[in-house]
């Protein structure tokens, strides 16, 4: 069955379905197969980039649930990643826990940190919440540096190479598979979370918190749930990042990363799981372009051009998207899809 011209949903279940046609199943399935076949024909360098993209996708999914769906803006996401990453790293390095056991513990710790720093969201919103989450980031990083006996402070902490059973995950290929499996699971989970009762509550809170509360949605409950879920995602991503390098350092979680995760969300399109993937992939791709173009520009213009190119390009991308495409790449993608779905008509006929 191919794609049909127009929308033919007759009930709620059809409207909420993830896959609307058989063809969509085929496309998604072949995309997943393609990803998992990547190590067969791609070099280690590209696998590294894809692994980093996978980690970013997981992190942005979390931020998307928190900010895109529930409307609670957080510019402390890298801080929560650091909580997850460091918890997992300490459990591995100091207590000798295996990788697969430390990862969920890290995620849980990040979730709890999210609950604590999410508490102000019950009293404040908008800009105040932004400031509170920025402060959360700096306080988390400062605490990690101060807890030198446990975390190694500014020197960092080396972590044993991850392994599951007897399979070492030290190789790029194996780690790539782990990250991709988790990224696919995270995507599936994110897609489903927003279709549940909680997901609908998040959207109601984002669109109008007063109306949501009047309808009987407990703001206290659902805002904290959103913080918890978003930060669990961040914790998983942070743990994956630290285990990839086998080294934990606060430099892996700079403040600007918190901003770029929000940037990925804006570039991809807020409040859309597909958009989160688009945004993460697009900005990571741009990072790579900048890494390639930076040295060339440095040689031609000035030695500091590489550093400034990274800053300016990130800033400019966000500025241009905010002005010209505030709904992000996801909206473009929907428009392209609609064009083909409705062809040869230009738009859907009104009922």
């Amino acid at each position: 069955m191919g794609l049909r011209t127009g929308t033919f949903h007759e009930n709620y279940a059809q409207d909420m379905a993830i896959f609307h046609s058989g063809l969509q199943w085929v496309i998604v399935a072949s995309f997943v197969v393609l990803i998992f076949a990547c190590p067969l024909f791609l070099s280690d360098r590209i696998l590294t980039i894809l692994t980093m993209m996978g980690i970013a996708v997981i992190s942005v999914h979390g931020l998307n649930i928190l900010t895109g769906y529930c409307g609670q803006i957080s510019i402390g996401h890298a801080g929560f990643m650091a909580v997850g990453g460091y918890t997992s790293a300490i459990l591995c390095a100091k207590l000798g826990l295996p990788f697969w056991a430390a990862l969920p513990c890290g995620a849980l710790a990040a979730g709890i940190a999210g609950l604590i720093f999410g508490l102000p969201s019950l009293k404040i919103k908008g800009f105040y919440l932004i400031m509170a989450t920025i402060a959360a980031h700096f306080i988390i990083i400062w605490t990690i540096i101060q807890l030198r006996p446990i975390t190694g402070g500014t020197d960092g902490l080396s972590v044993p190479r991850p392994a599951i059973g007897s399979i070492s995950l030290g190789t790029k290929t194996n780690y790539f598979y782990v990250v991709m499996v988790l990224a696919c699971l995270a995507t599936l989970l994110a897609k489903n979370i927003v279709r549940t009762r909680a997901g609908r509550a998040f959207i109601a809170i984002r669109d109008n918190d007063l109306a949501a509360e009047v309808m009987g949605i407990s703001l206290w409950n659902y805002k904290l749930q959103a913080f918890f879920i978003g930060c669990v995602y961040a914790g998983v991503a942070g743990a994956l990042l630290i285990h990839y390098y086998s080294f934990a350092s606060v430099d892996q979680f700079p403040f600007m990363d918190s901003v770029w995760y929000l940037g990925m969300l804006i570039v991809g399109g807020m409040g859309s799981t597909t958009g989160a993937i688009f945004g993460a992939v697009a900005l990571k791709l741009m990072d790579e372009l900048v890494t390639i173009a930076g040295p060339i520009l440095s040689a031609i213009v000035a030695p500091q051009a590489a550093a400034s190119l990274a800053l300016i390009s990130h800033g400019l991308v966000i500025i241009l998207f905010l002005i010209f495409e505030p709904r992000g790449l996801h909206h473009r993608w929907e428009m392209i899809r609609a064009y083909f779905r409705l062809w040869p008509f230009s738009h859907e006929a009104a009922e």
Partner: protein
Amino acid sequence: MTFFLQLVVTGLAQGMVYALIAIGFVIILKCSEVFNIAQGHFVLIGGYLGYTFLVPLGLPVWATLLLSIATAVIMGLLIERLMLRPLVGQPVLAVVMMTIALSTVLGGLATLIWGAEYKAYHGMLPTLNLKLGSISVPSESLIGLIVSIICMVALMLLFRYTKIGLAMRATAEDLQVVQSVGIKPTTVYAVSWVIASVVGVIGGILLGGVSGANMELAGIGLKAFAVVLLGGVNSLGGAILAGIILGMLENVAAGYLDPLLPGGGLSQVFPFIVMIIVLIFRPHGLFGLVTIERV
């Protein structure tokens, strides 16, 4: 006691500069409800502009000040027209992300033009010496204090006695009424950005004259946020008082506690601790408008 008073006096002068920078933030917020995260980067640009005009170009202080202000005016106008005007009526996240993006672009430009290096122009600003009993007031602090007070008085006069000042106060009060009596809000927005950028740049020159221009200057913006949150985001007087309080507290805390803490650097996290405490216990700050709003 002398040590304590010395810290207080230095803190007072430093706090006035913080207050000056914070005022730029408050003016933009009051007029256009935009939270300008890039305020600290105006300071950064100011510090480097001061260096450029004073050292490589060798201009006198008054010409430096005039040229820097002119640059700041152009910068403010461009930013408002190109970046903020398309976002009128957009949600708060879009606006905040825009100012964050603006801050990285400004940081990137500063890196490109001045190479993110430390540029000192210590002693280029005029010197004034004042001794109060056993306390000596550092010349740079005194200059900072005087310039800040002049700027603040100028702003007060602007708001009280000029037509545009009245328009700005009216816009802060009620946008719809202002539009219905024929005041163009876009002009008000542009003027508020120009003022913010000018006070930021002046603050940058003052701070650069003390500690030299480097990328760290942008971090002053974070202290300005703590100042505005403490004073109440929509209160000019609150910003001045909170600036003085924070400057003094920071100096006294650093003076007494830093030798006790192994890592030191308390003044680095100090603004954030203040910020969280204020946000939890008194979100509207000391003098801010208490908005009754369900969250």
